[in-house]
């Protein structure tokens, strides 16, 4: 069987993108009424909903912190979300925990949790359809939901994945590219403050190429930031225009 080629001689990828292009983003804030904040996020074929509750009373007193709020995150993937295998419906698989703790750490450092002592902020992520780049998409979606909840944040969190296949750095892989066995680099940044929230890399990349992969991921994060910002502005403008003037 011939080896699958990830890049055509013309420099196009399996889904027709060039190496430095992200997939189409589609997002909407404030989709649920019940939650304090919520968002729907679509990156290519990856579809995610996020609900945020809080700040609210801490469920168990033992975990309460007297100087700041605790952030709690749960990540779950729908049984029908993956095209290849049916996930077992139990929630305790390691991958979900890993992503949940990644999101938790990212938001602990970005939300101004010291403003809400003795309280708890819950972030629930539900993946409806998975097509690669789940960690990055979950972080971006959670950012929108947290902003919708009106929690004070130091900055956005923008995340993007990048890889290195067949000698070319590629931005925002889909599931097939993720399974190629190439490096999997996940960068999440605070785009305005210029801080790096997390940088994970699995598998190897030649040292002299690492810079260019990282550079590409950073570029992707900035592109996503621009799009997230547009949506936040659009949503806020909508809210303002719907507001009934209290004086009249």
């Amino acid at each position, binding site marked *: 069987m011939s080896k699958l080629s990830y890049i055509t001689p013309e420099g196009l990828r399996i889904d027709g993108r060039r190496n430095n292009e992200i997939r189409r983003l589609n997002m909407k804030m404030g989709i649920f009424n019940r939650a304090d904040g919520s968002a729907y996020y679509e990156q290519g074929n990856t579809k995610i909903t996020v609900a945020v509750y809080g700040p609210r009373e801490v469920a168990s007193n033992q975990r309460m912190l007297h100087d700041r709020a605790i952030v709690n995150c749960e990540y779950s993937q729908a049984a*029908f979300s993956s095209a290849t295998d049916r996930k077992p419906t139990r929630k305790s698989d390691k991958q979900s925990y890993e992503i949940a703790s990644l999101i938790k750490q990212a938001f602990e450092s970005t939300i101004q949790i010291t403003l809400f002592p003795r309280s708890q902020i819950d972030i629930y992520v539900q993946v409806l359809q998975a097509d690669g780049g789940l960690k990055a998409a979950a972080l971006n979606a959670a950012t929108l939901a947290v902003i919708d909840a009106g929690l004070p944040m130091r900055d956005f969190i923008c995340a993007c994945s990048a890889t290195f296949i067949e000698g070319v750095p590629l931005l925002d892989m889909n599931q097939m590219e993720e399974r190629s066995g190439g490096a999997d680099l996940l960068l999440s940044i605070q785009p305005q403050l210029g801080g790096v929230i997390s940088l994970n890399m699995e598998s190897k990349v030649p040292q002299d190429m690492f810079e260019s992969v990282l550079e590409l991921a950073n570029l992707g994060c900035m592109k996503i930031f621009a799009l997230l910002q547009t949506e936040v502005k659009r949503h806020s403008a909508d809210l303002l225009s719907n507001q009934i003037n209290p004086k009249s």
Partner: protein
Amino acid sequence: MEAFQKIHPLEFYRKFLERSVRPDGRSLQRIRNTTVSAGSILTADGSSFVKIGNTSVICGVRAEIAEKQQDQTTSNTCKSQIIVNIEMGPICSNIFSSTKPSEKAMSLCTQLNQLVQLLDIDPKQLYFDVDGKYLWYLYVDLYCLDYNGNILDAAIIAMLSALKNVKLPKGVVSDDGSEVYKEEDTMRTLIINSYLIPLSFAVIDEYVLSDPSLEEEKLSNGSISIVYNEKRELCLQLYSGITPLDEKTLQQCLDQTKQRTQEIKDLIDQSINDSKDK
């Protein structure tokens, strides 16, 4: 007024109900706006998204192949080949915890599994190959995304439209029976001719409210759920409450459910047709 609602929610409701209207502006019989869309999840073999007011449920079906079990006799039903599961996680409401499934979700799951058996599906349709040595098993997973009352109706409509949206590839088994593979080019749609028409009610004092919201469910002292099929045969009738229910009220509820038949049928058919055009 808001304070009154918070402190005496029941009294607040009574004041409205006396005037035959609900705080959200609906009359007692009025059902919230219902929307159905099918085929939006590409990774699933069939899917649907249903909204009744703010209550939203997403449903996906995954088909898996398995060899026919020996003890499974040649009965003409496809029992145990469709497995339904509903999840009501903390995402839909803060009253649910994530660690263990709630009682509500578990009882719903049983009801849905019973109802799915009543659907008229030719067992031959779930044959993977021609002679039925291998069978399709359909896993129906429902996720409640936003919970604002009347989850049973939303779940039933979602389950039904997702199943009607299922497309199965043609299966081929090699001659010696060692290999099974799917031919993705020739897809066939699962044909289900029956429908389920659900409607739930909440009883507050002597008033019966159709399609209750979460707040109404909480305040109610009884709840009625009725499911008909398209032949107007009763598939499910549930009443739980602390006060006995008189026959006239029940009859009214039954009649009202029957009246919803055409609307539900149209909604589901429309969504299935729309998904075909995509």
